[in-house]
């Protein structure tokens, strides 16, 4: 159990949120021109980092807005939270 500081609502319990996986995976601009390997990379392959990872979260039982989070997956400590479209903080 940990607390998440929603950029729209403030600090709430983690159980109000839904994790949305790795952040900054850009949807291909020309999907029709993608090879099978590139599709696999986009759809399935994940960094799954042990350590500092960039993620998307959704405040699904609150404002229902998406935002980004920088979190250390080895101890679940949140390093930074920023809105969608904002530049990720440099470590």
């Amino acid at each position, binding site marked *: 159990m940990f607390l998440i500081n929603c950029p729209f609502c403030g600090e709430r319990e983690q159980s109000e949120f839904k994790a949305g*996986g790795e952040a900054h995976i850009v949807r291909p601009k020309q999907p029709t021109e993608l090879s099978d390997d590139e599709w696999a990379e986009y759809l399935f392959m994940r960094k799954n980092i042990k350590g500092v990872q960039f993620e998307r979260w959704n405040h699904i039982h609150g404002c229902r807005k998406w935002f980004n989070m920088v979190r250390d997956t080895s101890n679940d400590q949140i390093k930074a939270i920023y809105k969608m479209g904002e530049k990720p903080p440099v470590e």
Partner: protein
Amino acid sequence: MKNKYSIFSLIKNAFSYHENWEKAWKDPEPKKEYDAVIVGGGGHGLATAYYLAKKHNMKNIAVVEKGWIGGGNTGRNTTIIRSNYLWDASAGLYDHALKIWEGLSQELNYNVMFSQRGVMNLAHNLQDVRDLKRRTHANRLNGIDAVYLDTEEVKKFCPIINTSQDIRYPVLGGTLQRRAGTARHDAVAWGYARGADEMGVDIIQNCEVKGIKRNGDTVEGIETTKGFIKTKKIGVVAAGHSSVIANMAGLKLPLESKPLQALVSEPVKPIIDTVVMSNAVHAYVSQSDKGELVIGAGTDDYVSYSQKGTHDIVEGTLNAILELYPIFSRMRMLRQWGGIVDICPDASPIISKTSIKGLYFNCGWGTGGFKATPGSGDLFAHTIANDEPHKLNAAFNINRFVSGDLVDEHGAAAVAH
């Protein structure tokens, strides 16, 4: 040659207060070079080493383990064994494992306490009923024993279940696989370790892999906390940490590592003589030989390597348990823990070669790897020794995420992932 475990060795050792049992496996320092190195000393890794030595005559091999053997997910699961999977590929894989389980204690001369007490899966809504009936038919076509039970038969098979139709998720029926059951998880690791050690396999504990050395597209060895080990074949069976090892080799895997929790109650007299799983409300329960209720909870939805899950998951599971088994309402829980499971997008494992020559991965078992331990080891050993998959694990190659030929067991596999 190790002494055989038997009633006579037990009696003999009783006279010396059990102080003179020989060591079940040595504790060697790594050699400079091996024909193959298995990364990960859990059940799957030790089984892989055992079958490499036994069936493929590869004796100069090592298992490296960063902690102690069987100390990861092998020692953290709820020990359920079954093979009632929907798809043909999965049915083949898991039933192969179940058939090995049936003779494993004799083969290893080590009591893995395999108990075919049956596994019952419950249906709580009309869609569950349809799905479970479909899976029962699919199982029987694949030669796997499965029967569908109506509510009364469920009650008869496990009388403590609350089959009132007035509860939030009433029991509408269930399936039963009688050959399924449980085993003692530590014994599986120890039995395979003892067997592998006897055939000359080096089991090296407290040895963490720090890097994988490549020469172009071929592996040359591994960097470890106990120095460099040269080898041409590396079999990675690192469960939740598979992606970490893959990153060392410059590979990306389709995995996410998440916490999965389980808990046990205080020990009580025998009350439930089978395993009951409920997909819809995510609660499963069995009773250990010590008398503890063994309860499996769900995964959290975020990536974590912390071996800790959230309290909400445990609470949700216990809510469901209490509705289904009101008799447990005053039981106290004794221990609760988490393990890190590596989940594939299609909830099926990967037992496969990779784009790097000599590097093999056995991962993605997600929430249900324990049941497959012997089969996984056998098939992974075959894949490593022949540099080609066995026909039973051909479908579980890593390339399926490129070809799209997924083995989608999400929801179909009799339990939520």
